[in-house]
């Protein structure tokens, strides 16, 4: 346990250092832009990893929650002149509520049924955002006002770099706390053996619902921040492919590894920027990368590399 604690504080410190020092080597706004998107994707993935990696449930609809959060911020601030933070909070509460309402019936289901249900939910959200043009601006999207803190307008890539980096750090801290608590153990237990978890007295449905709601709220927060950082949002954010992207980030980085989720988000945010040089071959290459990583590193990058490294240094088990 002491060791776990060390890994937590140590890992957090390292992440904080990276976030603090990265600006020294980021040459211009484009890199900041990529870094912001990495951090916000990572924010979603840290939450989603709690659901997929720790609770063993899959969601193919998290982009829907991300977009709902984004649009809550966009619509409430642009059309109703709400305070940005109030809009953000309302978005998170609303998304949490929606997740709660659908979660109870959905989470009785397992595996593929849950995949289908969340997929359907995400697609319905995307369709609604596309169709309700008077509210959402439709497929062409809508402009989002700047987030204001008192008189201070939060704009510019550097500002948003620090905001998204800070929020990510807090989110990682929260996630690590949760995993290493009684709640986290209950979640991991129901992933390990649902029957055994029930027998020791864990209300598994309740915990699944809880973690589904939490991960949805993380996504909503990321969506709100994205909307304000980018100052523009389109319904593509809710799309099926975006949901797939999030899941892929989690799985690629390493399920049941919070840092894995961050690394996965970083790789899959940066990768398209590299693959763009391949032009038409970009998608083909992306698909191939997914397949190969899953075949050769089914546990994901971070856990696999950790294992390799451990073997190399010949450390003790764990």
């Amino acid at each position: 346990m002491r060791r776990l604690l060390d890994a937590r504080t140590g890992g957090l410190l390292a992440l904080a250092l990276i976030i603090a020092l990265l600006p020294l080597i980021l040459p211009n706004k484009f890199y900041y832009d990529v870094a912001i998107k990495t951090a916000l994707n990572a924010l979603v993935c840290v939450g989603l990893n709690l659901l997929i990696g720790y609770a063993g449930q899959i969601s193919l609809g998290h982009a829907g929650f991300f977009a709902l959060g984004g649009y809550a911020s966009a619509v409430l601030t642009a059309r109703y002149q709400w305070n940005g933070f109030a809009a953000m909070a309302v978005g998170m509460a609303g998304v949490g509520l929606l997740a709660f309402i659908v979660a109870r019936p959905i989470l009785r289901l397992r595996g593929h049924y849950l995949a289908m249900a969340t997929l359907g939910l995400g697609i319905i959200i995307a369709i609604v955002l596309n169709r309700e043009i008077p509210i959402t601006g439709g497929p062409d999207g809508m402009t989002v006002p700047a987030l204001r803190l008192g008189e201070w307008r939060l704009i510019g890539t550097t500002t948003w770099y620090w905001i998204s980096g800070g929020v990510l750090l807090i989110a990682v801290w929260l996630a690590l706390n949760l995993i290493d608590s009684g709640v986290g153990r209950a979640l991991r237990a129901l992933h390990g053996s649902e029957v055994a978890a029930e027998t020791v007295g864990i209300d598994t449905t309740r915990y699944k619902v809880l973690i589904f709601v939490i991960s949805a709220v993380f996504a909503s927060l990321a969506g709100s921040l994205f909307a304000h950082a980018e100052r523009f949002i389109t319904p593509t954010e809710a799309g099926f492919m975006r949901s797939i992207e999030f899941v892929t980030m989690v799985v690629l980085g390493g399920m049941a590894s919070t840092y894995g989720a961050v690394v996965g988000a970083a790789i899959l945010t940066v990768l398209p920027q590299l693959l763009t040089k391949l032009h038409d071959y970009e998608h083909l290459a992306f698909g191939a990368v997914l397949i190969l990583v899953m075949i050769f590193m089914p546990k994901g990058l971070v856990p696999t590399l950790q294992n390799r490294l451990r073997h190399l240094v010949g450390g003790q088990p764990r």
Partner: protein
Amino acid sequence: MAEFLQFAFSGLTVGAIYALVALGFALIYNASHVINFAQGEFVTIGGMATVALMTGGGLPLLLAIPAAVMITALVGLALEKFAVEPAIGRPGGASVVTIIIITIGASIFIRGVVQVTLGKDFHRLPAFSGEAPIDILGARLQPQSLWVLGVTLLVVAALWWFFGRTRFGKAMLATSHNRLAAQLVGIDTRLVLLASFGLSAALGGLAGILTAPITLTKYDIGIMLGLKGFAAAILGGLGSGPGAIVGGIALGLAEALAAGYISSAYKDAVAFIIILVVLFVRPSGLLGGRSTERV
């Protein structure tokens, strides 16, 4: 009446497409409990390969069709052999999520290959028996729709025969019920798995060819057809063949009638709303059985 019939024809035609895709999902799911998210891409390959063979290869339709079905089946086999089996065959197997990501990766990969080799344009196949619409009680039907419905029926009959009457079909069925037991009685379950991908791909390819004269074909047509087919498979009860057919037709009809009598604005949401409601109320689907977990 004519209006209702017209809507119903539309629903049946589209529903038959969903049904064929759903059937592909069911086949693979039964053999391996894998949901193949690249199922829609088989539809793409069937249609696009036929177009390429006819325009590029100069083959007549009658030759291009079986060739394209073969090509699709080969892609299905390759998918199983090189992407799914290495993951499943590993000691300890692979998690549901891993397999989902692999098949999604495969779908992106296949789309990428089709896009690079055959282009991004949409194409049309000539209708098998002309374009002149048939008038039935005031509703007008494309003759190709009859082809789609007819072949769907034939496929159902052929599958019924295959699973009920042939040795290999029975082996596949046995594997779907209990993989371990099937292995113990000497069934090569790896071969069954491979065959299920081949068969399922061939079905998807056939669907793509049959429908290309109606829906046209394009490198990315498989995305939505795949998702709707998945929804149909779940609606009918995952792994149930008759369920897949019923689910597909039901979704197609529901979409058409909802667009006709309620509003077309949310037509593409209908399938997913239905599926959510069904999952809430009856998670095992329309025709799926309930299973008790063993401890």
